[in-house]
C-alpha cells in the first residue's frame, strides 16, 4: 500500500478493522435484499396454482435458477464487503490518526491528535452482539467528517482511545505507559474526601493533574462517577415533557371524541400512541443507564439501552454550557445540561442532539457536580450561592446585571431574571421565566461577540448581546440589556476574551509550552 503522504509515519504498524464489520454495518441491506428476493421467489411458487398446470413441471428447474441468482448476488455483496474491509486500514502515530479506505475511490484521511474534540466508543446492538465497537474521533470541522474506525474489538477500541487521549494530552510516549501514571496520580488526588468536599461545596477546582510518577498499573484513566440518571427519573422526565403531555392529552381527547361515534375501536388510536411511544423510546434508549464521570481525560459519559455509547470530552473542549430548567420539571427539581463542543453539534454531525447532552435529567446536586467537571474554576467566591442565583434566581444579587424594569411590556415575566454576570473565568447569561435557562461561556472560548438592536428595542433603548460559539444546542445571548450596559459589556467582554486567549491554550492539556513546538 503506497503511503504518499509525508506525515505518514512508516514505523507505526497499519491495522485493519475487524473482518465482520462491513456485515455489521450492512446487515440491514443484506436482510432486506434476502427478504425481498426470497419473498418474490417464494410467491412465484405459491402462486402457480392460479396459472396453468404446466408451470408445475417447471418447478425443479425454476427453483434452481433463482437460487443461483440469489447466491450470486450474495457472493458479490460478500466480495464487496471483503474488499472494503481489505482496503480499510488505520494507523496511529504520535501526532496523527491516519485512515485509508475505499476500493475504487481511494481515500486517505489524516487527523491531528492534538485537535481531538471528543472521542466516542459506540456500540450499536449488532456490534454489541459481536463484541465490537466503533471508535469515533471528532475534530473541529463543520461536522460530518469525523474519523471513524468501525468496527474493532471493544478492548482494542478502549486501548486506542486511551492511547489517543494520552497523546492528545501531550504525552509523547508511544505506549499508554505514562498516561497510566497520570491517571493513577489523579486517582490519588480524587480520594473520597475530595469527592464529598466537591459535592457539598461545589465548584472548588478539580485538581489538574501534573505528570509526576506513581506506580500502579491501570489500563485506563480511572473514573469517578459524578452523576447518574435512575430509570424512574428518566421516565418521569419524559412524561413531564410538553410533547408527552400534549400528545397524551390529544390522544385522550381524540379517543373520547371518537367513542361518541359508532363502531369505535381503540385500535384507531394506535398510530398516535406509536408516535408518542416512539419518541419516548428514543429518549429511553439513549438516556438509559446514563452516567457522567470524571477522569484525567476529561468528562466521560456513558449511556444507552440497546445501542450504547461511551463519550469522552477532553478538558477545555467545551465551548458553552447550558442548564435548562423547564417549567414542568420545576416541581421535581430537575434540570438538563447541554454543551457545545466543536465537531459534535454541527448540522452535519450524526446524533448531534444526544451527543451534546451532558445530563439528560438531573437533580440540582447532579448539575453542580457535572459543572464542577466542565467548569473546574467558576471564578467566583461562594460558587454555590452564585450558581443558585444563576440557575433559579432573579434580581441583581451575586453580580448579576438584569434588564431594566422599563422593558416590562416586552418581557412581562422574564425581565427580572434575564441578565448576565461576569466571573473571572466565564460569562453567565440567565434567561427565561417559565423555562429557565442559564448559559455559561468560558472567556477563552469566546469566538466573537454580537451587539444588535431592532426597531422595537431602540424604542426601549435596549440592545442584545450574543456570544458566538461553535454550532450546537446552546445559544448564549443576553437579552434586552440597557444600551449603555450592552455597549460596555460588548467592549469589556472582547477584552476579557483576548486576555483569556493569551493565558490559555488547552490543545494539550497536560503539557505546557507546547505552542512553540507546534507551529
Amino acid at each position, binding site marked *: 500500500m503506497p503511503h504518499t503522504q509525508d506525515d505518514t509515519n512508516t514505523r507505526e504498524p497499519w491495522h485493519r478493522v475487524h473482518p465482520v464489520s462491513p456485515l455489521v454495518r450492512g446487515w440491514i441491506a443484506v436482510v432486506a435484499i434476502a427478504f425481498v428476493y426470497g419473498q418474490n421467489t417464494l410467491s412465484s411458487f405459491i402462486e402457480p396454482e392460479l396459472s396453468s398446470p404446466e408451470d408445475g413441471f417447471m418447478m425443479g428447474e425454476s427453483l434452481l435458477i433463482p437460487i443461483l441468482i440469489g447466491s450470486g448476488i450474495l457472493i458479490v455483496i460478500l466480495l464487496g464487503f471483503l474488499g472494503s474491509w481489505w482496503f480499510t486500514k488505520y494507523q496511529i502515530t504520535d501526532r496523527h490518526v491516519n485512515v485509508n479506505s475505499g476500493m475504487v475511490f481511494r481515500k486517505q484521511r489524516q487527523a491531528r491528535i492534538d485537535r481531538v474534540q471528543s472521542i466516542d466508543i459506540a456500540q450499536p446492538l449488532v456490534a454489541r452482539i459481536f463484541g465490537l465497537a466503533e471508535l469515533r474521533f471528532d475534530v473541529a470541522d463543520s461536522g460530518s467528517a469525523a474519523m471513524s474506525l468501525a468496527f474493532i474489538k471493544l478492548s482494542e477500541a478502549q486501548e486506542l482511545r486511551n492511547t489517543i487521549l494520552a497523546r492528545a494530552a501531550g504525552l509523547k510516549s508511544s505506549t499508554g505507559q505514562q498516561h497510566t501514571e497520570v491517571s493513577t496520580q489523579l486517582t490519588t488526588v480524587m480520594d473520597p474526601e475530595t469527592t464529598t468536599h466537591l459535592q457539598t461545596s461545589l465548584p472548588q477546582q478539580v485538581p489538574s493533574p501534573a505528570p509526576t510518577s506513581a506506580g500502579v498499573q491501570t489500563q485506563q484513566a480511572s473514573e469517578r462517577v459524578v452523576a447518574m440518571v435512575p430509570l424512574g427519573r428518566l421516565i418521569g422526565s419524559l412524561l413531564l415533557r410538553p410533547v408527552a403531555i400534549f400528545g397524551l392529552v390529544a390522544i385522550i381527547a381524540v379517543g373520547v371524541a371518537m367513542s361518541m361515534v359508532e363502531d369505535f375501536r381503540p385500535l384507531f388510536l394506535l398510530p398516535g400512541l406509536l408516535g408518542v411511544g416512539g419518541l419516548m423510546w428514543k429518549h429511553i434508549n439513549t438516556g438509559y443507564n446514563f452516567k457522567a464521570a470524571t477522569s484525567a481525560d476529561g468528562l466521560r459519559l456513558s449511556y444507552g439501552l440497546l445501542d450504547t455509547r461511551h463519550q469522552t470530552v477532553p478538558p477545555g473542549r467545551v465551548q458553552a454550557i447550558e442548564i435548562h430548567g423547564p417549567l414542568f420539571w420545576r416541581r421535581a427539581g430537575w434540570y438538563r445540561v447541554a454543551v457545545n463542543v466543536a465537531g459534535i453539534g454541527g448540522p452535519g454531525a450524526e446524533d448531534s442532539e444526544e451527543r451534546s447532552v451532558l445530563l439528560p435529567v438531573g437533580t440540582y446536586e447532579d448539575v453542580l457536580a457535572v459543572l464542577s467537571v466542565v467548569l473546574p474554576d467558576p471564578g467566583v467566591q461562594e460558587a454555590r450561592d452564585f450558581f443558585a442565583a444563576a440557575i433559579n434566581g432573579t434580581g441583581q444579587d451575586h453580580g448579576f446585571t438584569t434588564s431594566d424594569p422599563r422593558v416590562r411590556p416586552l418581557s412581562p415575566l422574564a425581565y427580572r431574571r434575564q441578565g448576565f454576570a461576569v466571573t473571572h473565568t466565564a460569562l453567565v447569561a440567565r434567561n427565561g421565566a417559565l423555562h429557565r435557562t442559564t448559559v455559561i461561556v468560558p472567556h477563552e472560548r469566546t469566538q466573537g461577540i*454580537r*451587539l444588535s438592536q431592532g*426597531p422595537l428595542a431602540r424604542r426601549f433603548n435596549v440592545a442584545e448581546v450574543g456570544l*458566538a460559539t461553535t*454550532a450546537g444546542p446552546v445559544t448564549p445571548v443576553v437579552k434586552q440589556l440597557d*444600551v449603555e450596559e450592552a455597549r460596555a459589556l460588548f467592549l469589556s467582554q472582547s477584552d476579557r476574551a483576548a486576555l483569556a486567549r493569551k493565558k490559555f491554550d488547552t490543545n494539550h492539556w497536560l503539557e505546557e509550552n507546547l505552542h512553540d513546538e507546534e507551529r
Partner: protein
Amino acid sequence: MQQEPIDPAGITWMRVSPQYAKVRMVGWGISALITLVVLSVPLVLQLTGVWPGYPLWLGIGLPAIVLIAELIRLAVIPRQVAAIGYAERDDDLLVRHGLMFQKVLVVPYGRMQFVDVAVGPIDRMLGLCKIKLHTAAADATAEIPGLPLAEGTRLREQLAARGESRLAGL
C-alpha cells in the same frame, strides 16, 4: 460616519465604497423586476379576458403596493451602504451593519479560521470586492462587502498576518 447609539464608544469606523450601492441596486432591480412580473400575471390574464373572474382592484392594487415597498427599499439602499462599517483594533475586527436592525460584531483575529475574498460580476466592473472572515462559529462570520480591490487585498493580508501572530486554539 454617523454614530448610532448602539455603536461602542471610541471606535472610528472605516466605511465601504459608496459605489457598493450600485451593486446593491442591480441586485434590487433584478429581484424587484421578477416580483413585479410575477405579481402582474393575474392582471394581464384579467385584461386579456383569460381570467375574467379576477377582481381588477386586486390585480392593480397588489403590484402597486409591492412597487411602493420596493421603491422604499431602493431609497434606503444608499443609507444602508453608508451604515456598513468596519474597524481594525489590536486584537479584533469590528464590523457593523444595518439601519433598522443594527448589528455590531467583533471577531478576534486569533479566532479566524480562513478569509474569503469574493468578487462578483458587478463588483468587478466597479473594482470592488467582498471580504468574509470565517471562524469556528457560524454566527461569527464577519462580512465586509463593497471594499475597493486595493483595500480588500490590504485587509486580507493584514488579517492573515494578525491571525497568524495571535493564533489561538479553538
